[in-house]
């Protein structure tokens, strides 16, 4: 495994390096927990890694409250997300996903931007962000910003809308309506408790009004299809219903809508039948405690 590395320290240097390298094979490196494993498996090529780990601009490295929600820089690590009290009280689906990602050693370095850009159907923080219907703020080498809903970001297995001259700068999560109660969590089922790439995962972020009526629902599924899925019809089905008094047949109908989004595969970790069975039960469990 051999490659060249360039380490920009600010956005200006980063954009210049992206421009200069347009005709070459280059990759971004943030926490390296996906990239190094991928590169170890490849034959050596004339590769340049643009090392994001030494960037110091807040816009890439900070969690900040903004007028209409929270902005998280792409270089913020899973560890920092898991410790953020602001994120915990507003979007516990995201902090729980961060806590359940890999191990302490991996969380210490793994970034939220890397988790999104690697575009794995098992990306835990990415799955939570789909449930939150976050927006991706993408910068190109001219310094132009474009904003893409994360639900449009993934185009297939490990592919995204990012162009060669673009970098993911930050993520914006829309604010919750203040009056609402928040039901927000990340459920991850693996074959063992620690370090597991999930068999299925379900992220939900549901808001209700004073009368327990559901006013907003975001539900995303991981590891059940080639990309993370927003279970739109299941979300819509919940709107206007009472969170605390869904009856068993409504819960069943809800879980059937969830399953419409799953095209699970059989692999070394679990069979398609098992994945479907587990997903149905996980979906029901949202309303059963």
């Amino acid at each position: 495994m051999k490659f060249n590395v360039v380490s920009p320290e600010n956005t200006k240097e980063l954009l210049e390096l992206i421009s200069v390298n347009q005709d070459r094979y280059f990759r971004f490196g943030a926490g390296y927990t996906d990239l190094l494993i991928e590169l170890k498996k490849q034959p050596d090529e004339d590769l340049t890694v643009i090392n994001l780990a030494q960037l110091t601009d807040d816009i890439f490295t900070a969690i900040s409250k903004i007028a209409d929600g929270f902005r998280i820089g792409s270089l913020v690590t899973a560890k920092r997300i898991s410790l953020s009290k602001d994120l915990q009280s507003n979007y516990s689906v995201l902090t729980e996903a961060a806590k359940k990602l890999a191990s302490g050693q991996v969380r210490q370095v793994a970034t939220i931007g890397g988790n999104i850009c690697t575009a794995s159907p098992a990306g835990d923080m990415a799955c939570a962000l789909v449930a939150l219907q976050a927006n991706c703020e993408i910068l190109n080498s001219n310094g132009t910003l474009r904003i893409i809903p994360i639900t449009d970001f993934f185009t297939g297995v490990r592919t995204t809308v990012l162009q060669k001259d673009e970098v993911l700068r930050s993520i914006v999560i829309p604010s919750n309506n203040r009056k609402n109660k928040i039901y927000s969590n990340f459920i991850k089922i693996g074959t063992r408790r620690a370090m597991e790439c999930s068999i299925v995962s379900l992220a939900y972020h549901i808001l209700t009004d004073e009368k327990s009526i559901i006013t907003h629902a975001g539900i995303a599924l991981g590891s059940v299809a080639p990309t993370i899925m927003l279970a739109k019809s299941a979300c819509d089905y919940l709107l206007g219903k009472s969170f605390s008094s869904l009856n068993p047949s409504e819960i069943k109908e809800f879980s059937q809508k969830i399953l419409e989004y799953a095209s699970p595969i059989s692999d070394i970790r679990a069979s398609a039948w098992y994945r479907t069975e587990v997903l149905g039960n996980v979906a029901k469990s949202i309303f059963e405690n």
Partner: protein
Amino acid sequence: MSQSIKINFTINGKRTELTIPPYMLLIDLIREELGLKGTKPGCLEGECGACTVLVNGEAVNSCLYLAINVDGKEVITVEGLPVTPEGEIDPVQEALIQHGAVQCGFCTPGMVMSIKSFVAQCNKDNIIPSPDEIKKAIEGNLCRCTGYVKIVEAVESLF
């Protein structure tokens, strides 16, 4: 094709300047360049934690860490844990020995470093961890021998 890069960092308290290939992994810097063989190569894929070291006090897998990114930082390996003039070793190491939590010992250096950072965090937050919290803290360290029970007991004894 790849240009060597100069880095400045401290290793086990000693300021060091080195020029290294840009693609060098931290585990190779530690074991090959610095000759510190206490840090173990296991899976080399982030799964087993045998290669765990502290960077700025936090446990990381040195097999998935680019060595140039320790520039300006402090690295501590198992060799860097202090021994008193009377020959007393680090309390974490002592606890593992006292509880019979070391068998073949291959996982031990990495285990010790994960426990070090966890204990420091607990002391800072002023909490006494439950057995479940201890298990969660060492989820990134695989041990093929002990079955973890004695390791968890050893960590409990530190509080």
